[in-house]
């Protein structure tokens, strides 16, 4: 970027960055990710240009409780993917402080040995108050990396509990990581995170109890689940998935080649079927978030901002119910576009 960049229109600057990033300029790619993450003026023109060129990458979500070994497994997967000569990107999300907005992004610690390899691109993201295990802009960031030509994109969530299932919509394949002896069989049949897994990985396979944990998960998750991916959907498409269950020891690499093979199998199975539910869910989330942003933006424009604030104040004082307030705001929009 030259010194005159500030004076150039955002669309032009975005276009220049997009061209450079697709030409392999990693700094331009990093700047685009920043623009998307900060929702800067460059984000919209950049994504408009990049989105039609994305869609070829395999996006894999990796989630699980803190300390299960997500970052170590991601590092081991990078090594395995690079043996096959494929370009791989990582988006690693860590939580933001609800108090100060600050964050400590520590996932790179375990992934630093690929510094000389330009086909490995690792980016940390703070969740910035978003609660689903990802940042609100993680989906847009993966689209940027996808359009930049990475074949595999690993999305590592914040350490999750039982219900941060958003990653299932952000990824084509969702891997839920468990550590041995983290709970009894009843934990495995509770609703939530395990239901959205395409693959369940029991990591720390060298620890006592790993085999037993895997056997329990296999018994509880496979029994009564829906058909395998790619098979005919039965009468109830809303049945939970039937995940494959694997054991890895990420710190030594044991089981990692098998995990990559399972990921590739799932990728092929999904590609052979109709447009995957995960991709539809992703489109749904992307578009509705923009619709909400646009509506909010219009209601905050100068000629409507005062009446919007006045409506919100009446809700705060319990003089108006929130449904009537929403109707009022939508009516204001309509009046404005008619006039």
């Amino acid at each position: 970027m030259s010194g005159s960049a500030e004076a150039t229109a955002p669309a032009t600057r975005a276009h220049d960055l997009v061209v450079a990033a697709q030409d392999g300029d990693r700094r331009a790619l990093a700047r685009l990710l920043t623009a998307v993450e900060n929702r800067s003026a460059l984000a919209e023109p950049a994504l408009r240009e990049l989105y039609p060129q994305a869609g070829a990458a395999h996006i894999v979500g990796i989630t699980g409780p803190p300390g299960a070994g997500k970052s170590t497994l991601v590092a081991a997967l990078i090594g395995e993917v690079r043996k096959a000569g494929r370009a791989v990107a990582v988006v690693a999300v860590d939580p933001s402080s609800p108090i100060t907005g600050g964050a400590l992004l520590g996932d790179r610690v375990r992934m630093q040995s690929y510094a000389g390899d330009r086909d490995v691109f690792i980016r940390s993201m703070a969740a910035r108050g978003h609660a689903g295990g990802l940042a609100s802009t993680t989906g847009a960031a993966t689209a940027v990396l996808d359009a930049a030509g990475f074949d595999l994109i690993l999305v590592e969530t914040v350490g999750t509990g039982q219900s941060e299932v958003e990653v299932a919509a952000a990824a084509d394949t969702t891997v839920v990581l468990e550590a041995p002896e983290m709970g009894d069989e009843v934990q495995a049949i509770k609703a939530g995170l395990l239901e959205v897994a395409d693959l369940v990985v029991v990591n720390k396979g060298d620890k006592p109890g790993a085999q037993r944990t895997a056997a329990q998960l296999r018994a509880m998750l496979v029994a009564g689940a829906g058909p395998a991916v790619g098979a005919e959907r039965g009468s109830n498409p809303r049945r939970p998935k039937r995940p494959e269950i694997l054991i890895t020891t990420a710190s030594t690499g044991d089981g990692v080649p098998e995990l990559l093979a399972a990921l590739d199998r799932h990728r092929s199975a999904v590609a052979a079927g109709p447009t995957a539910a995960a991709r539809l869910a992703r489109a749904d989330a992307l578009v509705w978030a923009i619709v909400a942003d646009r509506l909010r933006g219009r209601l905050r424009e100068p000629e409507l901002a005062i009446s919007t604030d006045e409506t919100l104040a009446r809700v705060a004082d319990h003089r108006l119910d929130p449904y009537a307030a929403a109707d009022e705001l939508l009516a204001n929009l309509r009046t404005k576009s008619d006039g």
Partner: protein
Amino acid sequence: MPDRPIKVLIAKPGLDGHDRGAKVLARGLRDEGFEVVYTGLRQTPEMIATAALQEDVDVVGLSILSGAHMTLLPRITKLLREEGLDDVLVTAGGIIPDDDVQALSEAGIARVFGPGTTISEVAEYLRTNARPRD
């Protein structure tokens, strides 16, 4: 968003194993509202430059206590310049003799923080001098 957090890479180049200071600073800056990327011990200049590039940080903070600062720190600033990251604010801390500060400043280290520096002094300096991008 002008009030977005400043993004800082805290890295420990070289072979000494004393990362307590770097960790305390990383945690302290988190509490001051910064987004801190921490990369751990024994980082080569190449690892630090790659992380700074991919993370698109506003600041690189280098902690070094091994005595190798006159070799490693200029090598890092040179790599950052080669990657086109000359607008990144680079600071250093640890055990660095006063006599070396001038030479480091000429090599592109904007500020050397000595022992006894408080977190809030560092935070204030970064808020004043980092140039967050859009």
